[in-house]
């Protein structure tokens, strides 16, 4: 079996380098090689390429650095198809796209990547990163459980705690068979809550093996994004993992968009 790879697209901006500390830690956890990719208008190589990737490019020593010519998103997806990375780690947007939820390239990659995408807020800069707490919003459906497998594996390998946040949709239970949401009746909380928590973990684990992972379930209600962001702050979350059904147009993906816009920590997006 070949060594796993993490693909790290860098566009040469200082903001883009924010992806590196995250990618490096993820690489260590996954025992994966980092594959740095720069897509430009001209062919670059050697020192010229390293220089193009930024003043702090010395941090790139020891990594595979790949340069391509063309449209960034197209080339990133092309390389991803070739090297089949375990994940893509990239900045949410470049300097020129400041204030946007997602840059154009990140958006396209998110849509079409064949693997999970970790989007790093540029304001993180070069601050060292670690993975102690992974937060996962979960709507209680089996399809979300299945989608979260890469996140669970990552958390287990990184010995991080997985905090699963179930935000109740008070208006309607998910229609997907096998979904588990907040119990409609809580006859005796001293019995219902431990049983509900155990069932939530069991249902998650039966489609997303949890191994020795330390899992905690938190029940919340209200706006999902607001609750996730609140808990993210309170729990010192290092990574938010979001399952996405790959429909971007409103009213879909509202939670994903809000979290992408507001979160200060990296966000891993996995597709259901």
């Amino acid at each position, binding site marked *: 079996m070949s060594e796993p790879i993490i693909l790290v697209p860098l566009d040469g901006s200082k903001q883009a380098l924010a992806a590196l500390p995250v990618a490096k830690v993820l690489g260590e956890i996954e025992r994966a090689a980092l594959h740095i990719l720069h897509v430009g208008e001209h062919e670059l190589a050697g020192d010229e390429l390293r220089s193009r990737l930024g003043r702090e490019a010395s941090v790139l020593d020891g990594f595979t650095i790949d340069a391509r010519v063309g449209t960034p998103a197209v080339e990133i997806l092309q390389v991803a198809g070739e090297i089949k990375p375990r994940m893509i780690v990239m900045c949410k947007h470049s300097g020129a796209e400041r204030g946007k939820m997602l840059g154009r390239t990140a958006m396209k990659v998110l849509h079409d990547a064949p693997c999970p995408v970790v989007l790093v807020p540029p304001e993180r800069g070069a601050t060292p990163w670690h993975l102690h707490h992974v937060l996962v919003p979960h709507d209680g459906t089996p399809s979300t459980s299945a989608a979260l497998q890469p996140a669970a594996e990552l958390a287990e390998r990184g010995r991080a705690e997985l905090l699963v946040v179930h935000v109740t949709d008070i208006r309607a239970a998910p229609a997907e068979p096998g979904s588990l949401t907040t119990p409609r009746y809580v006859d005796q909380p001293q019995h219902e*809550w431990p049983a509900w928590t155990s069932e939530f973990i069991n249902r998650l684990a039966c489609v997303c093996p949890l191994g020795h992972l330390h899992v905690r379930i938190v029940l919340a209600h209200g706006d999902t994004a607001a609750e996730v962001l609140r808990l993210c702050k309170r729990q010192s979350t290092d990574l938010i993992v979001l399952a996405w059904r790959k429909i971007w147009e409103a009213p879909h993906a509202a939670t994903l968009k809000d979290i992408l816009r507001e979160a200060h920590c990296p966000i891993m997006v996995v597709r259901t």
Partner: protein
Amino acid sequence: MVDPLSGGPPAGLPELRARQASLHLAQLPAVPTGDPGWILVEEGFTLAREHEVESLFAIGNGYAGSRGSLAEGSALSAPATFVAGVFDSKPGSAPELAPTADWTHLSTTIDGQPLRLDRGHNLEHRRILDMRQGILWREWRHQDEAGRITQLRALRLVSLADHHLLVQCVTIMPENFSGRLFIDATMTGPVVQVTGSGTTVAMAVARRVMDHAERWTPSTELVEGRQSLELRLGKTYRLDRIVALHTSRDTREPRETAGKHVERAIDDVAGVIAEHSDSWQARWEASDLRIEGDPTAQRALRFAIYHLLSAVNPQDDRVSIGARGLSGTAYKGHVFWDTDIFMLPFFILTYPEAARALVMYRYHTLAAARAKAARLGYRGAFYAWESADSGEDVTPPFVVAPDGQVVQILTGEQEQHISADVAFGVWNYWQATGDDHFLVEAGTEILIETARFWASRAEREEDGRYHIRGVIGPDEYHETVDDNAYTNGMAQWNLEVAAETANLVAERWPGPWQALSHRLGIEPEEPHRWQQVARDFYTGFDEQTGLFEQFRGYFGLEDIDLAAFVPRTAPMDVLLSRERIQRSKIIKQPDVVMLVYLLWERMPPEVRKTNFEYYEPRCGHGSSLSPAIHALVAARLGDTALAERYFRQAAEIDLADSMGNAVGGIHAGALGGLWQAAVLGFAGLRFCGEKPEHRANLPPSWRSLSMRFQWRGQWHELTLPKGAERRKAEEDP
């Protein structure tokens, strides 16, 4: 989801017998009921729903209960068999029902390939709960990756005729191949285990396998339950497994008894099944409730009756029915007021022998109730909010809620109405059965000791009235409240009934009364004092408005419009927080309405209506016990549309469980409530005088309701066509 089976005319028991007699030996020794009104069907397989299915499809006989788990297991299977009254506890935690070894486990491989739902293709897969016969069926056609199609049919039962026998039969037929079958029918877990409290549970198993030539391989030739067979194309092979289950609660030598028992049974599996089926037939003849015009309601009521019957054992009066019966681990098998108030009426009216066992359980746990009262500085008996084998209160002291909050559980100390609830069950049992022997030997003592508790618990205050402070009523959203209307009302009732009973027993059975008064140290004036306390009890009733105030200060709380939260899938305390709920008028379940229902005959009609109309819109139905009582009271008040809506909600608690409510077991209390809603609500059955009466308000779709019930030793037929008017129920000729 659970869907009715289509096709096939209803199969009556004689017809079933005829079909069974014509069965080929290698086929299963029984056939499923075809009538959709008697079966639940789970088509296909959704792994994540497995715990729900296991609960809904549980089988039992009151002595033992077994979840409807897949024999070969799955990633989410939680097979468990429980024996009523056999508890175990880990240090520092409450006792819980101790699961036995898994007697249903059966794994098969065909040419080395495991036969599992998560491998290959499931061409057909169906589980059928046959409520009429108390049998769990399974039909499965599986195609493995090599294209081999195997047909498997199975039945499983916990015998109602012989409480100690558990039966499993499986047929396997290779549809398009010949190959090697390996069966592993070993039990998982120890066949003999001793609980922490010293109870020995012993299981003995006998198996036999029939090959293509209809030769049985007896149990002794199966090496520890494992067998290898050469399968021939199109031939059927059958495994029978019978388990005998005995405990040191019922015999001195459970292991030996089980061994002898099972050896006798294995030679006549068909006979064991037939006797079981006959027992269910007899049980249904007494307890069935037939609804014409509403198949959904019919099936829901049969489901309720089936699970209630599966949970009760008239032969053992030292056990009761836990909140989830014997169908799951949730609630640890603990017994609550659910039994006395929600389940007991069904048994009293259709299965009085079982009802007697349930009220006797309260008699046997009276010592623990006395000890609890004494520990808290009161006289008499304060029953456990959560009770297991001994009757000690085993309510867990706290819980970590899923929002991370550690919540102190106060119900064990404050939900004191349990003592009056127990007394209410005792009184109702005696009223309906006329079982004077019970009243004299056990019931009176319970009524007296619970009355003594209230007499010592209530305090006379400056207003000259007796008050009870610091309790929780049925509405558990509001804790440590003063003068809860339900608690005070039921305490008042308890005191009055105890005094009445004491006088009655003294007059009619002077000898036993003397012995009892001597043993309990009853002062001659004590019954009179109970009457005085009852007379001066504070009830919270306002004559101006006709309302009971649920507790002191309730009317001053914030009024939150629950209609603004419709539709809603979560309980209100989760949505608004416990603190906000406590400051509001939102209630978890009927409290004053519960009082109105239980003491119906004491309430003037306008008081019933006024209080229902006030409290019903303020109820968040955070308890599964809530919708059925609202259905019942609404039906009695003539609001059939509202009653029907609540009835449907109650019926869906387990059956339409798409939210995981039933994963830890069925809601036995809610099922009892559903039955009450139909019989005491829609049918309006009431016992005001010497004869039962009914004042029916059937839902428009119900063309008729018919049932039998027993009143003071006499069976009655109740048949209500739609629009039936008030009349006396007819006695059986």
